[in-house]
């Protein structure tokens, strides 16, 4: 066996734990429920659009489809973000507090491998959830309206980055704080980013640079909301982008530099989590 054995062992353990403790199945069930509700709703609205628009309103129909699909992706992003924090917030702090970690870290494995293994296990589970839900939304669009979002792959990759960002922050918090304090921290940062993003959107719409700056600063604290706005910017229709009026789209899209920042932020935080856990008294 190689020297990275513990990474694989911990990744499998984390994935299996989620499955055994019904986390995966509850998430899957709720995801399916969401898709069923979404599919029925989309189908009913599509019937209405077809009756009212006929063949004359192709542009409006396309915009409606884009709006509905983007709304679906918005919910998927929200659900996977919440799920990411909920499943991972207890992963390290809970095992540290209970002492479960003692028999694991006393084995001949470097501690950073334990953190990386957990990160990979959660990443796998959450990526699967994202793929199923975002794939489901896309499938509904194809089946009901024979349409997909523009730049879907880029959009989904950015949504994936949001999961990895939140997961890394949650694991770092778990090496420093109790479960409760970690949950408050991650949700707090998530909330600040969310509000900051809206302030930036409205600021951009009103050409208010100060408000835009507030959004940029909050994005630096935790760039998850900025990544959603970039994803929405990629997936929204060009018309909505130009008008900047969609509640799910983005009138002020973060730059590619911000995307690069988010990638480095995620890797940096993961590195800090591994380092902090390696040095921590348990």
């Amino acid at each position, binding site marked *: *066996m190689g020297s990275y*054995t*513990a990474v694989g*062992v911990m990744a499998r*353990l984390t994935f299996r*734990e989620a499955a*055994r*403790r019904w986390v995966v199945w509850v998430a899957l069930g709720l995801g399916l429920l969401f898709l069923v509700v979404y599919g029925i709703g989309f189908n009913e609205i599509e019937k209405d659009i077809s009756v009212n628009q006929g063949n004359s309103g192709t542009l409006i129909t396309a915009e409606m489809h884009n709006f509905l699909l983007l709304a679906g992706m918005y919910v998927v992003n929200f659900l996977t973000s919440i799920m990411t924090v909920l499943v991972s917030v207890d992963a390290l702090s809970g095992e540290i507090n*209970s*002492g*479960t970690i*003692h*028999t*694991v*870290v*006393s*084995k*001949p*494995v*470097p501690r950073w491998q334990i953190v990386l293994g957990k990160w990979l296990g959660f990443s796998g589970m959450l990526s699967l959830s994202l793929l199923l839900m975002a794939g489901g939304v896309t499938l509904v669009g194809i089946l009901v309206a024979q349409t997909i979002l523009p730049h879907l792959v880029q959009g989904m990759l950015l949504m994936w980055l949001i999961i990895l960002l939140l997961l890394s922050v949650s694991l770092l918090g778990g090496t420093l704080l109790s479960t409760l304090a970690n949950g408050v921290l991650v949700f707090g940062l998530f909330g600040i980013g969310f509000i900051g993003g809206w302030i930036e959107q409205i600021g951009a719409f009103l050409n208010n640079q100060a408000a835009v700056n507030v959004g940029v600063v909050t994005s630096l604290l935790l760039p998850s909301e900025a990544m959603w706005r970039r994803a929405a910017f990629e997936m929204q229709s060009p018309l909505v982008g130009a008008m900047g009026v969609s509640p799910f789209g983005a009138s002020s899209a973060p730059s590619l530099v911000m995307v690069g920042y988010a990638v480095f932020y995620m890797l940096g935080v993961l590195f800090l989590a591994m380092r902090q856990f390696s*040095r921590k*008294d*348990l």
Partner: protein
Amino acid sequence: MVSELYAIETNRLSKYFGEKAAVRDLTLQVGQGEVFGFLGPNGAGKTTSVKILLGLIQPSAGAGYLFGQPLGKPEVRRKVGFLPEHFRFHDWLTAGEFLKLHADLYQMDARQVKPRITELLALVGLSEFSGKKLRTFSKGMLQRIGLAQALLNRPELVILDEPTSGLDPVGRRLVRDIIRDLRQQGTTVFLNSHLLSEVEITCDRVAFIKHGEVITTRPLQALLEGEVTVTVRASGLTPQIAAGLQRWSQNVRLDGEHLGLTVSGEAVLPEIHRYLVTEGAAVYSFQPEKVSLEDLFIQIVGTDGGL
């Protein structure tokens, strides 16, 4: 000079939490194949010391080695098995899965894992519970599976922190038997236990720790072969006879037919008995009592429990 001959070697290890010293200048040498008892009252620093040895806690000062390798190096833990005091686990796993997980963490050869798990489940009396989830186990069963986990990799050093906690008499006997077998196999055992009677039975040497400091480290047999208190009931005892006993004891107490004295060891007892009879005393009873480890513990550590 660090020696690989020692399973554990520490030099003035200390751990401070703020101003408070949890462990202070811990200096120990535990030879390979030795069964070593680590004794002290609650809060004396025993568990912190164990955690430092296993690299769970970084020492504030000093140095320590396992088999000549610095503490904290993951590779050296390949030779170590550990049962923590407050044993917690992934309770959604079955007993078999739990042992497989820890065998994987030890990076054991895949071909050896299954037979070793079967062997250990039999050793701790849990063969029929291999497929049961740990959350359904009693405290004693959990302690047994924890012990099996500590022995998975055929360790050269086994660190047991309160291994008999939660066990019934049958379970405690099982632990004693396992420790005896480990000693026969040449495995070093570092035993941290409150149950002094078990330490008395199993250990070669003991260290007494209080307020984070090792007060003394001694061979257990020498300790127990030390002072003996003798209580005699005999007629014909006189002050002259009592005075004659002072060649063996400076602590002689005569009260009618009752005589008490404390001597340095068992070796002198036949001589004392012979002396009494020769001097004309009619001895009805002659009861030597060894000093128990508990007496020694109280004597060395004190009655304040280290608080």
